[in-house]
C-alpha cells in the first residue's frame, strides 16, 4: 500500500541520518510546548487528539497494509463511554479515559476478528459497514443522547487532585497522553512484533509459510490500533466536554484516512503532520462552509494521483532519511 522509500539503512550512515527520528521527535516536542503561547490552545489540544487518532490508524495501514474505513467506531464509542462514565458515574478523568479505551479495545476485538476474515478491498468495506452499524446503535441507544449527544461532560479532577478546567493543566495532560501514545506506537513498530507485521504487509503468503499465524498478528495489530484510537477519542470527549454522533459517523473515518494520507502513510510523523494540516485548514477556512468538503475531496484526489508519499514521506525521500 505504501510507496517504497529508499531504505535509509543501505545509504551511507551519517550521524544525523541515523538520528533523524530522534531529531524529528525533539523538534515536535519543542513545537508543542511553545505552541500554546502563540496559538489558540483548545485548537492545539484537539489537533493532538486527532494526531494520536491518525497515528493509531496509520499503525494498521502503514505497517500491516490493512485499510480500515471504520475507525470512527473506536474513536466515537470511546468518547461516548468516557463522557458517560465521567458524567453519569462521576469517574475521574483518568478512569473515564480508561473506560473509553477499554470499550474501544473490545469493539476492536469483535469487529477485527470478523473483518480480518476478508482481505484488501473487502476488508475496507467490512470495517466501514461495522462502523455504520455501531453508528445506528449510537443513534438509537438512550445513553448516547442520540442527536443531542452527551453534553456538559465534567472535565473533573485528574487523580482527584488537579482541576482540568484550568486550560494549562488540561494542555499538559493532553500533551502527555499524545506523546505517550506516539512513543508506544513507535515502540510497537520497531519491536520484533512490528517486524512480523511488516513481513505480512510485504507478502502474507510468505509470512504464513515461515510459520507465522498471520491472522493472530493482524488481529492483535487491529486491537492495538482500535485501543489507541480509543485513547484519542476518550481524551477528546473530556477535553471538549461533549460526545456526539459526529465522532462515530463515517465522515470521521474518512477524515482520519485523509490525515494519514496527506502526512504520509507508513511514516512515523506523517499522521501528526497530516492532522495538523487538515485541522488548520478546517480552522482557517471555516468561513467557506461546505466548500471545505470539496477542498478535502480535492486533496484526497491529488494525494492519490500525485503525492502518494504524503508530506513527510516526500521530505524523507528527498533527504534520504527515515521519519
Amino acid at each position, binding site marked *: 500500500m505504501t510507496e517504497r522509500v529508499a531504505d535509509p539503512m543501505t545509504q551511507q550512515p551519517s550521524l544525523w541520518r541515523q538520528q533523524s527520528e530522534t531529531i524529528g521527535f525533539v523538534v515536535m516536542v519543542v513545537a508543542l510546548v511553545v505552541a500554546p503561547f502563540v496559538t489558540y490552545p483548545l485548537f492545539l489540544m484537539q489537533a493532538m487528539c486527532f494526531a494520536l487518532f491518525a497515528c493509531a490508524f496509520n499503525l494498521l495501514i502503514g505497517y500491516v497494509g490493512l485499510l480500515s474505513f471504520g475507525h470512527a467506531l473506536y474513536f466515537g464509542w470511546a468518547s461516548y463511554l468516557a463522557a458517560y462514565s465521567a458524567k453519569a458515574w462521576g469517574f475521574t478523568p483518568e478512569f473515564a479515559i480508561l473506560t473509553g479505551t477499554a470499550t474501544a479495545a473490545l469493539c476492536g476485538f469483535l469487529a477485527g476478528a*470478523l473483518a480480518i476474515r*476478508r482481505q*484488501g478491498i473487502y476488508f*475496507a*468495506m467490512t470495517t466501514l459497514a461495522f462502523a455504520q452499524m455501531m453508528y445506528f446503535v449510537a443513534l438509537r441507544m438512550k445513553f448516547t443522547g442520540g442527536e443531542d449527544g452527551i453534553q456538559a461532560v465534567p472535565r473533573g479532577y485528574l487523580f482527584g487532585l488537579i482541576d482540568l478546567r484550568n486550560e494549562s493543566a488540561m494542555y499538559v495532560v493532553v500533551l502527555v497522553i499524545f506523546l505517550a501514545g506516539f512513543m508506544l506506537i513507535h515502540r510497537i513498530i520497531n519491536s520484533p512484533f512490528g517486524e512480523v507485521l511488516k513481513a505480512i504487509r510485504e507478502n502474507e503468503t510468505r509470512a504464513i509459510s515461515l510459520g507465522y499465524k498471520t491472522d493472530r498478528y493482524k488481529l492483535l495489530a487491529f486491537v492495538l490500533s482500535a485501543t489507541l484510537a480509543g485513547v484519542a477519542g476518550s481524551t477528546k470527549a473530556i477535553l471538549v466536554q461533549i460526545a456526539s454522533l459526529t465522532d462515530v459517523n463515517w465522515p470521521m473515518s*474518512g477524515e482520519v484516512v485523509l490525515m494519514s494520507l496527506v502526512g504520509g502513510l507508513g511514516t512515523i510523523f506523517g499522521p501528526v503532520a497530516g492532522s495538523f494540516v487538515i485541522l488548520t485548514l478546517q480552522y482557517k477556512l471555516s468561513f467557506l462552509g*461546505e466548500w471545505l468538503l470539496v477542498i478535502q475531496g480535492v486533496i484526497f484526489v491529488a494525494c492519490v494521483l500525485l503525492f502518494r508519499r504524503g508530506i513527510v514521506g516526500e521530505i524523507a525521500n528527498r533527504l534520504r532519511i527515515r521519519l
Partner: protein
Amino acid sequence: MFEIFGIPSTALFGQLLIGLINGSFYALLSLGLAVIFGMLNIINFTHGAQFMLGAVAAYMLLKFTGIGYWSALILAPIIVGAIGILIERFFLQWIYKLDHLYGLLLTFGLALIVEGVSRNYLGSAGLPYTLPESLRGGQNLGFMFLPNYRVWVIVASLSVCLGTWFLIERTRIGAYLRAATENPTLVRAFGINVPRMITLTYGFGVALAAFAGVMAAPIYNVSPNMGSDLIIVVFAVVVIGGMGSILGAVLSGFGLGIIEGLTKVFFPEASNTVVFVIMAIVLLVRPAGLFGRRA
C-alpha cells in the same frame, strides 16, 4: 383490513412494500458496483454520489428546461454516465496498476467533491421533485393503500436488473465483457479494444446508479446526502452477496430490502442494523459471501 400475528395488514404489507422498494435501490446499486468491479477492479465509492447526481439531474432538467420525469429517466443516466466516462478518462485510468485500495480512496475523494458541490448549490435539506401526473394517487386494496408510483419503482428496477443480467450473461457483448474480466491480455489479442470497453463499462455502471437516482427523486426528495447514506448499506449488501455474480447482487439486494421491511414491523429498533448483523453472520459462516467465489 385484517390482522396477521396481531399486526394490522396495512402495516405489514405496507412495510413489505417499502422493503421491496429499498431492496430495488440496493439491487440496482450493488449491480452497478459489481459490473464496475468486475472490469475495473475498483470499488466505486463515488457510486452513492452518482446516484444522487441522477436525482439532481432530474431535478435540474425539470426546473430549468421543464423536461419531465419520463424523459429524465432516459436523459439523466446518459448525462451522469457521460460524466462517469470523463471521470474514468481523467482520473481512474491512472491508478489501475496500483494497489486496489487507492481506487477506493480516489473514488472516495471524488464522492466528497461531488457531494460538497451539490450541498453548496442545493443546501442539505431535501428538495421536492414533483411526481408525474400519471403516477400520482394510489389503489386502496382494502388491506392496504398502494401508491401507484411505488409499484412502478419495483417493476422498473426489476426489469432493468433482469435486462442487465441478460445483457451480460446471454449476449455477445456480455461474453466479451466476461472474457475481458478473466483475461484482458488475451481478449486484447483478439483485437478488441479493452481500454474502451473498460471506459464504457464504467459509464454503464454509473448510468445504472443515476437511473436509480431518478427513480428515488420523487420518494426521497433530492438531497446531497441521499447517496452517501445509502452506499454504505449497499457495501454491506455486496459483502453479503459477494461480487461473483450479477444475479447474486440482484438477489441479495431485494432479499435484504425485504428483511429490512419485515424488521420494521416486528422489531423496529433494529431496522437500521439488521443488514449489518446479517453481514457479520455471513462473514462467520461463509467469508466469501453467499454467491461469491473464494478469492
